[in-house]
């Protein structure tokens, strides 16, 4: 069973090829390059290095969100077009869960977050086995998230490049309960993405067409339009 994993939900990029549970090759990079330029050449290069032809891929895993809208769309468009062209399934994984998987050996809760600007974050918190979600993936204000974590009254490890942006606030709310993952664990890994889904039943290939990113937010124009409609109905 050969998996291709694609992670482009934010600025970092990760691509991995996993065969029968073994990581054959993986790239993790944190460069300010456009995913649109780098993803396909990277996939081509990695497959060549491990001598695997596109047709030999059995399934594709991709980060489905939340994250940067453009980053998500590039990863998802490539994943679904590859899957559809190969007639193989595509599996989406929460990009927060992928990141949280980096903190798996921590004995407590793991909180993954991305900065969503204006003191908001995309965040979720998990138990270390990652099967149990204690705070589900959502768009939330940092204060509200920290309040919820505080109420759980357990040690929390924060993972993600953006956790640093909120370091002071996190300490203010959680004090001694707050831990920060080492920086080497701040970047999402496509091999983790595959690890999270490789034992699950695969979706049907018919589902490829309807596969879209999970943005966790409607577009601003749409939100405003809905508000106008409501006003009109009152």
């Amino acid at each position, binding site marked *: 069973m050969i998996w291709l994993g694609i992670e482009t939900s934010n600025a970092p990029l990760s691509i991995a090829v996993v065969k029968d549970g073994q990581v054959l090759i993986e790239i993790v990079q944190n460069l300010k390059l456009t995913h649109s330029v780098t993803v396909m*050449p990277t*996939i081509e290069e990695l497959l060549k290095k491990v001598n695997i032809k596109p047709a030999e891929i059995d399934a594709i895993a991709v980060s489905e969100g939340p994250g940067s809208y*453009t980053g998500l769309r590039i990863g998802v468009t*490539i994943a679904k077009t590859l899957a559809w062209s190969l007639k193989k399934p595509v599996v989406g994984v929460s990009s927060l869960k992928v990141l949280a998987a980096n903190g798996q050996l921590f004995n407590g809760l793991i909180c993954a977050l991305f900065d969503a600007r204006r003191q908001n974050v995309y965040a979720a918190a998990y138990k270390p086995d990652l099967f149990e979600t204690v705070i589900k993936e959502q768009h939330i204000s940092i204060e509200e998230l920290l309040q919820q974590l505080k109420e759980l009254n357990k040690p929390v490890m924060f993972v993600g490049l953006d956790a640093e942006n909120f370091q002071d606030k996190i300490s203010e709310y959680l004090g001694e309960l707050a831990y920060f993952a080492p920086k080497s664990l701040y970047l999402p890994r496509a091999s983790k993405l595959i690890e999270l889904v490789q034992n699950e039943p695969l979706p049907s290939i018919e589902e490829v067409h309807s596969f879209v990113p999970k943005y966790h937010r409607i*577009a601003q124009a749409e939100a405003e339009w809905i508000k106008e409609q409501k006003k009109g109905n009152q």
Partner: protein
Amino acid sequence: MGEFIMKDTIILAIETSCDETAAALIRNGSEIVSNVVASQIESQKRFGGVVPEIASRHHVEQITIVIEEALEKANMQPSDISAVAVTEGPGLVGALLIGINAAKAFAFVHNLPIIGVHHIAGHIYANALVQPMEFPLLALVVSGGHTELVLMREHGSFEVVGETRDDAAGEAYDKVARVLNMPYPGGPHIDRLAHEAEESVDFPRAWLDESYDFSFSGLKSAVINYKHNMDQRGEEIVPAHVAKGFQDSVVEVLTTKTLKAAREFNVKQVIAAGGVSANKGLRTSLEQVFLEEGIPFTVPPLKLCTDNAAMIGAAAAYMYEAGVRGDLSMNGVPGKELKSWK
């Protein structure tokens, strides 16, 4: 195309530069085998224009469905395809990226060459699907994003001899339609109203001296001022008279400059391209002057004037023949310049 080609050149073309998700299969640069367009107009109408984020979201939903439909309608397999073509720019960057990355993924799996096409070259080459192009050729490209006079001395050679200094013609249509309280897209409504009108309000023409450039923002302001003055005097405007006055100004400037350029460059053929070339007023005026002038003039049918992938495939077929190739690092170029490939 070349007479000695034994095997057909089949291009799979993809276009997602604005609010249409489109795919087509083109044989030998001249024949449409299939042409699928998923329009977002019903969704975008709510916002009175195209919202880039909404456009990108729709493209991701539609992209593989549209490509599959194009293949099915053509009754073709990926193994029949010679190359994959995709709009590289100009356009909305987030929208372009969907088509480009889908094209690259498809080309990679099927080991096909990839060709990045300029959107305006596509609009011009829509004409190659109707009849062979004769050079030198003058193209008037008018759409929501463009107003350009392009001179072509041979296939793949483009010289922009005139362009808009501010609004595109289609943009001016949409803005004036909004002033007249018409739904988006406003162009067809103005065209229809203008045809019904017997009288018209007199609006200025922007000649810009001897230049082939265009300007429509002054005309747009004149319409807004007219409405404002009438409102202040408590008088009702007659939308049809405003529409006719506006359209007359746009059409006269476009027609006069196109005729002048056609004479100066001694062209053998004049073509109109882009969404606004579907405008009846413009079409009739251009047909008439070039009939009198004795220069063949063509406009592609409506479904090839608005954004579609068939036109991208037509241009790509000539690029393919000329040996133009892109690679997997292709990126969307929102402000891409129209450059010759020859």
